[in-house]
């Protein structure tokens, strides 16, 4: 699709179409957006991040990723819409995007698990639509794939992760064994100035903060809870979607090796994980006509958090 204005945001797209969309978006907003290749996946697909920047070297930055779990298609589709929204708001000078981008950069990764995402589109065997992990070989030849959100170097191999390659929550043989995780970690560590880390998942409508590996309160728990609560109110204002707010451990499940804990432990204070709209009625098959409304409500929460991060330098 040659123009982003003709792109159908109310549809789920395959990897190639999303990557083409990214190229089109970059070409349409070349003064703002660049496409950063951060490495390749296990199956040798490129991994891309959209960098929104008005200039400057290694400015304070905000990280947003989607699609770490392949079947959570609404997260990819939401990120596509978000990319366009950020670009459009900047172009049309709609607050608060220009002021945020005057101080900070935004890095948006639409497909954090490209191999898994391609696998969920594979046909004719539609069973794979519900694939969650990446596609790397494991010690069990019958069971591929590592859960990328259990593979981070954050209390790796603790509770809420499995050492069985056949399990949905297989953590991998060692921390950051997976090239997809390593590529993201390298970008963030080499940059060194990320102030916020947000990851988009789907199921259950939750906005969460550290920790996942422990029921103990994070040192910034009070502030993170307040920010998440306000963000969930902003989200609620659009359609009335109700989110629960809390630590990963307490409101969803114990989860070691999770990306948000990894980011928080490395000094990125404003670290949050979203579980987007999906009550279970459609499983991970949320009807496409709900993509734009989901994306828009998510945007209100993200926008609140980004503005807060911008206003509270540390």
């Amino acid at each position: 699709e040659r123009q982003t204005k003709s792109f159908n945001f109310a549809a789920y797209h395959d990897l190639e179409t999303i990557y083409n969309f990214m190229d089109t978006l970059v070409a349409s907003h070349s003064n703002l957006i660049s496409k950063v290749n951060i490495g390749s996946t296990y199956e040798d697909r490129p991994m891309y991040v959209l960098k929104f920047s008005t200039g400057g070297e290694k400015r304070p930055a905000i990280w947003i990723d989607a699609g770490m779990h392949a079947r959570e298609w609404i997260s990819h589709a939401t990120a596509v819409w978000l990319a366009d929204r950020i670009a459009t708001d900047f172009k049309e000078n709609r607050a608060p995007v220009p002021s945020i981008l005057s101080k900070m950069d935004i890095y948006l990764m639409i497909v954090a698990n490209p191999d898994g995402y391609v696998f969920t589109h594979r046909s004719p065997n539609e069973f794979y639509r519900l694939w969650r992990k990446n596609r790397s070989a494991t010690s069990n030849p019958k069971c591929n794939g590592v859960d990328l959100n259990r593979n981070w170097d954050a209390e790796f191999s603790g509770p809420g992760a499995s050492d069985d390659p056949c399990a949905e929550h297989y953590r991998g043989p060692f921390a950051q064994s997976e090239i997809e995780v390593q590529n993201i970690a390298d970008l963030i560590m080499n940059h060194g100035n990320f102030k916020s880390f947000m990851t988009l998942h789907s199921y259950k409508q939750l906005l969460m903060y550290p920790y996942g590996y422990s029921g103990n309160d994070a040192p910034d728990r009070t502030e993170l809870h307040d920010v998440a609560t306000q963000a969930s109110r902003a989200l609620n204002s659009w359609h009335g979607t109700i989110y629960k707010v809390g630590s990963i451990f307490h409101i969803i499940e114990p989860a070691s090796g999770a990306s948000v804990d990894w980011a928080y432990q490395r000094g990125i204070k404003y670290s949050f994980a979203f579980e987007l709209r999906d009550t279970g009625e459609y499983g991970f098959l949320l009807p496409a006509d709900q993509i734009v409304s989901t994306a828009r409500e998510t945007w209100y929460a993200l926008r609140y958090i980004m503005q807060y991060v911008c206003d509270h330098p540390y």
Partner: protein
Amino acid sequence: EELINGDKVFRIHAESESHIHALKELERDVDSGLDFWTHAVSTEQPVDIRVPHSRLYALKDFLKKNNIPFTVIINNVQELLVREREEMVRNAEV
């Protein structure tokens, strides 16, 4: 397609610690073929599981034996997949 036709999604309501313990044991059995979408953590949060057709009766027996209440929230995952696929084909044509 035969693999997934007839798959259902169960929403299970654990009412006690023993229910949670039983569900955790079930999840540890990776050979069960069950796909846990949410997990047995507390009595306040339901557990959603996609159940392959071939495992339906075994799971129902397990839940009944342990007196664990459940409802079926998706009757046939395949139907949703077919609908999604048709929609994607239409969108691709557009």
